[in-house]
């Protein structure tokens, strides 16, 4: 049986740079991201998914609004989030936004839930980090109940009480909002995803990807252990794909490294050394190089980890417009067909 593979783009709406090197502002970046979605749609990529951040490096804090704009100017591409920080949001409002997007996009919306590795949204929206785990568990349960589409009867500890309440706009009968769960290196998150019967996408953003094999095994085992179905697995990673390998590496050093270091200051990561950066490109989790180099690496790691879905984070750290667009074009035109060929996907070869 041939596996169905899916390839998409992720972005946090990193504040970009014009080709003359001057920084874009947030407004320009938002319009650029919509243009990039149009390009991705034309190239036949399966999805574009947007992160939600609340800090100066990123323009997207309200992904569904941006996805709504994309819905109007694209035709086939799935429009998603990566991720929606459900813990610091109201599941009812999230449902309303995505069911609205469902209508606007002819059912191309999808949502990826995550605990969020950034925590800015908690104080911003008045949620307490003390309840991080409990909030997430309760709100996932509420989300799944909302997806049933029936009048809601709900009583939670952190969420509102609802009695026979219908949430609008309703999804057409029999339709749902495809939901996945983003996980990192926490065994508990993987088991939780299986428990909730939600497909997982693993963020593999550092080190040799094969180190995540035990977590993939854990996913399979958890399905058996809990007697739950398995879903296709996905992964997400950063990349820059240019025709000149050296240029790709230098763009990566300038932008990916800078972004990691900026975030690292808040998160307590040590600054990235050149040695570690090059290791991430050679053997680790950065997909930086020519289309052929990147395709080989993606195919190798998807095989090693049983992956059906690969989401490339493009534009990390901003980058010049032509570099962002070249990565997208190379990904769609060269990398994806080549990866499918390497994986033996006859449908699309």
């Amino acid at each position, binding site marked *: 049986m041939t596996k169905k593979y899916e390839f998409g783009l992720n972005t946090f709406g990193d504040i970009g740079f014009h080709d003359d090197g001057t920084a874009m502002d947030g407004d320009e970046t938002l319009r650029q991201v919509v243009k990039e979605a149009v390009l991705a749609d034309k190239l036949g990529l399966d999805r574009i998914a947007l992160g939600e951040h609340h800090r100066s490096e990123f323009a997207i804090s309200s992904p569904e609004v941006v996805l709504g704009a994309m819905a109007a100017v694209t035709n086939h591409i799935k429009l998603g989030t990566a991720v929606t920080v459900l813990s610091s949001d109201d599941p009812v409002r999230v449902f309303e936004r995505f069911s609205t997007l469902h209508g606007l996009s002819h059912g191309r919306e999808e949502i990826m839930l995550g*605990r969020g590795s950034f*925590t800015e949204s*908690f*104080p911003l929206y008045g949620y*307490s*980090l*003390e309840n*991080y*785990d409990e909030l997430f568990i309760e709100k996932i349960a509420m989300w799944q109940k909302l997806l049933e589409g029936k009048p809601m009867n709900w009583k939670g500890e952190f969420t509102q009480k609802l009695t026979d309440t219908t949430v609008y706009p309703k999804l057409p009968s029999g339709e749902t909002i495809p939901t996945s769960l983003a996980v990192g*290196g*926490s*065994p*508990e998150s993987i*088991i939780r995803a299986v428990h909730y019967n939600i497909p997982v996408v693993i963020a593999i953003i*550092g*080190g*040799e990807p094969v*180190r995540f094999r*035990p*977590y993939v*095994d*854990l996913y399979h*085992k958890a399905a058996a*252990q809990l007697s739950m179905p398995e879903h296709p697995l996905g992964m997400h990673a950063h990349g820059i794909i240019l025709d000149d390998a050296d240029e790709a590496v230098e763009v990566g050093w300038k932008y990916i490294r800078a972004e990691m270091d900026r975030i*690292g200051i808040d998160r*307590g*990561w*040590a600054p990235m050394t050149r040695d*570690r950066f090059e*290791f991430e490109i050679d053997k*680790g989790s950065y997909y930086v190089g020519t289309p052929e180099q990147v395709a080989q690496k993606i195919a190798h790691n998807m095989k090693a980890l049983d992956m059906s879905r690969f989401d490339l984070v493009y534009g990390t750290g901003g980058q010049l417009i032509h570099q962002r667009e070249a990565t997208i074009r190379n990904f769609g035109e060269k990398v994806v067909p080549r990866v499918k060929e390497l994986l033996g996907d006859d449908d699309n070869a």
Partner: protein
Amino acid sequence: MPNTDKPTIGILGAGKLGSTLARIGESRDLPILIGSRHSVADLKWVIDTLAPGATTLSAAEVVRQADVIILAIPLSHVQDLEPAAFADKIVLDATNFWAEVDGTVNTISSLIESSSEVVQAHLAQSKVAKAFNHMGYHDLEIEVDRHPDVPRAMAYATDHDDIRPVVEAVLRDFGFDPFDLGPLRFGLVLEPGSPLFGEAIPRAEFADKLAHIYNSAFGKKIIKARGGEIR
């Protein structure tokens, strides 16, 4: 076969850090026991997958059987540990204050009293060393494995000179170069916010960063809070 001359290592907590340390220990033939707040039945298949070879027990049994106990649990859960159960044990405190699990405001430790001093005060009948704090759990494997000939410095601090040889042996057994910071209070420089936090570097580089700690923003905060350097 595990080498039975080694102290038995017990890991409390089977999350990112605990499961990673169990896997490293097993890959280096150390006898590892691990337990968490979950039942043995719920944890065993997880550990058998993530750290094959490690022995899953109840948390209480891990504490009872182990010679050296690594705390790989949230800092805010340490106060729930029963001190008597830990009497006369060596405890390696790998916890750090982490807002996502411990709460937005740190009401546990401060720049005056480091988190491991709080842990030692709670586990008063045990000999506590701060260790496994300053390196990200991914890097415990990634950075160690890609520098097989240059071990990464793993700093530790303790008020008990008699356990230094055991602590150093354990750190060495896990693949690190033990770096003695002295008494427990000096462990403050390993905590989140410090330039040493997150570092997986060799001894000489670590020593150099440590020597300049009071030039850093974190070092200046320490001086401001304490009216001077840690003494």
